[in-house]
């Protein structure tokens, strides 16, 4: 039999801690390694979670990493590290600060966990996924960004608020970048197979799209100090589960495009089939003209940020 699964979570803020906690509660893997900047705090959280796993009658052991070598033999490494977005701060403001952090961890993963699938959740998401791909040097199927699952979950919630039924059965579709230019696709949305058009009028659907786009910012403003982490963490573990259990399920994830949807050498959110090897297949949906235009705008906004990093000679050490 294969060995028990191992997941390393980099970053022990609310996001990373909640990811590790969900994994421990569900018994998705046998080992979770938490990698944080402060070893004592990280160890405290790891102990607390290991004890919770026992209360939940689960087998998962959570440990704190002393150094990058503790990532060895991870099946999945989740990068949550990075400065959070504070009120008034755009995703772009975070760009350079977080690119440096992701670069550092990507190099460590390359050295210590060269067979892992990397799940990036640091913002701005699409660019950070791009940075992680470049600095791990992994094939694109093993470096994925978590965005579409969260955005679709938010959209599904706003649809539920209108309908007041079907919670958990609403299949929403969101493509493109995880930012102000995300592309929600309400026409593709169903509730247990029933098309959304049969349940809501176009004005209501328009309102839902608007709320979805603003979903992250709404929570940032309400919390006052920090951003959302319950839905983001759960969405991340959906990806981790799909990889560890080799589910071959379809999820919207950020991935490097290679002649997909007409683009190459840029990361954006598209439907992929996730299995043990990461994104084993990119699936091309038929988009209408308006959707094609919105997707283009989304890709371009990510490209601009990548260009900014190039101008700052961020990638020069790759050569």
């Amino acid at each position, binding site marked *: 039999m294969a060995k028990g699964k191992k997941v390393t979570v980099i970053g022990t803020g609310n996001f990373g801690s909640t990811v590790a906690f969900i994994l421990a509660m569900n018994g998705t893997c046998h080992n979770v390694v938490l990698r944080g900047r402060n070893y004592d705090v990280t160890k405290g959280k790891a102990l607390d979670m290991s004890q919770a796993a026992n209360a939940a009658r689960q087998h998962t052991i959570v440990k704190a990493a002393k150094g990058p070598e503790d990532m060895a033999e991870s099946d999945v490494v989740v990068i949550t590290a990075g400065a959070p977005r504070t009120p008034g701060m755009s995703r772009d403001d975070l760009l350079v600060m977080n690119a440096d952090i992701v670069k550092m961890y990507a190099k460590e993963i390359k050295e210590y966990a060269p067979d892992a699938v990397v799940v990036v959740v640091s913002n701005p998401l699409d660019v950070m996924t791009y940075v992680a791909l470049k600095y791990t040097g992994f094939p694109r199927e093993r470096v994925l960004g978590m965005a*579409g699952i969260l955005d*679709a979950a938010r959209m599904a919630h706003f649809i539920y608020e209108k309908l*007041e*039924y*079907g*919670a*958990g*059965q609403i*299949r*929403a*579709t*969101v493509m493109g970048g995880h930012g102000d230019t995300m592309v929600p696709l309400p026409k*593709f949305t*169903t*509730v*247990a*197979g*029933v*098309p959304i*058009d*049969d*349940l809501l009028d176009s004005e209501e659907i328009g309102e839902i799209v608007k709320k979805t786009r603003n979903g992250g910012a709404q929570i940032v403003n309400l919390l006052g100090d920090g951003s959302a982490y319950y839905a983001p963490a759960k969405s991340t573990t959906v990806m981790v589960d799909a990889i560890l259990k080799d*589910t*071959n*399920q*379809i*999820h*919207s994830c950020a991935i490097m495009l290679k002649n997909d949807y007409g683009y190459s050498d840029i990361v954006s959110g598209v*439907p992929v*089939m996730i299995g043990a090897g990461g994104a084993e*297949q990119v*699936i*091309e*949906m*038929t988009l209408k003209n308006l959707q094609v235009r919105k997707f283009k705008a989304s890709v371009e906004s990510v490209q601009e940020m990548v260009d900014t990093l190039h101008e700052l000679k961020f990638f020069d050490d790759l050569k």
Partner: protein
Amino acid sequence: MTGRKVGIIGAGAVGATAAYSLSMMGTCKEIILFDIAEGVAQGKAIDIGQSTHYAAQPTVITAAQTPADVKDCDIVVITAGVPRKGDMTRADLLLINAKIIKSVITDVMKYSPNAIIICVSNPLDVMTYVIGRITGWERRRIIGMAGALDGSRMAYQIYKKLGYGSGQTGALVIGDHGQNMIPLPQKVKVGLIPTTDVLTDEDFEDIIERTKNGGAEIVKHLGTSGYYGPGRAIAFMVEAILDDTQSVVSSSVLLEGEYGYSDVTVGVPIVLGANGIEEIIEMTLNTKTREKFKVSVESIREGIEILEENGFFDS
């Protein structure tokens, strides 16, 4: 609904598998099994009861000695009835099962007067209608299990074509629970993608055909009807009611003007919750689907007509 007590009448393979599925999920506080065959309910109740040691939540499983023991249930699942045998006509089967249902329902009305009834007996739509007529209860409390199963069979066929997306496929089958059922694979999604982007018209035809024959295909291999799919589908509906999930699932329900029909039970998407049927969803059907739906309704009405002609509802 504090007791979370579910009665299952008919402890054959379908009834017992529903009980087992519910026990493993820990959905109910108590499940009571009844069967006319002596010992069957008792033996299965003990076996399932012992398996709950490894379940996430505790469930008490008991066997009823008499119909009177199936009392004060929140939900009663009715799987009673005989299968169609070689020399039986459709009318024969209808009359035999309608009589069984009548006797079962008389007891349910007496001993679990506030229950929501999930009908699983065949022919499904007509038996659901029979229960509605005999009880005279509000339609929200009488639900036929059909679309939950047929939909899962359709989802399975879609997965077989694609080789991915298991468990992520929408399930949508309307119409009767028989040869005129209307699977709608073109309307659903696999994860976030519309099936129309990954399947051809030929695929859809094949999926529809295989979904319709989903039950028969299992009989061909097994020599008897399937019960894992039906058992789990029943459990899903019980969970929706007990947990008040407000889930959308196709079910056979009495129409009162919806889709242009009245006084007939047929499969349509409903919202299922603590009150039973919380809402009936009226989808926009294209002309072709409307015609198929009409054929479906007529085939159910023919069954009801046979019972009327034989004076079944007279007493």
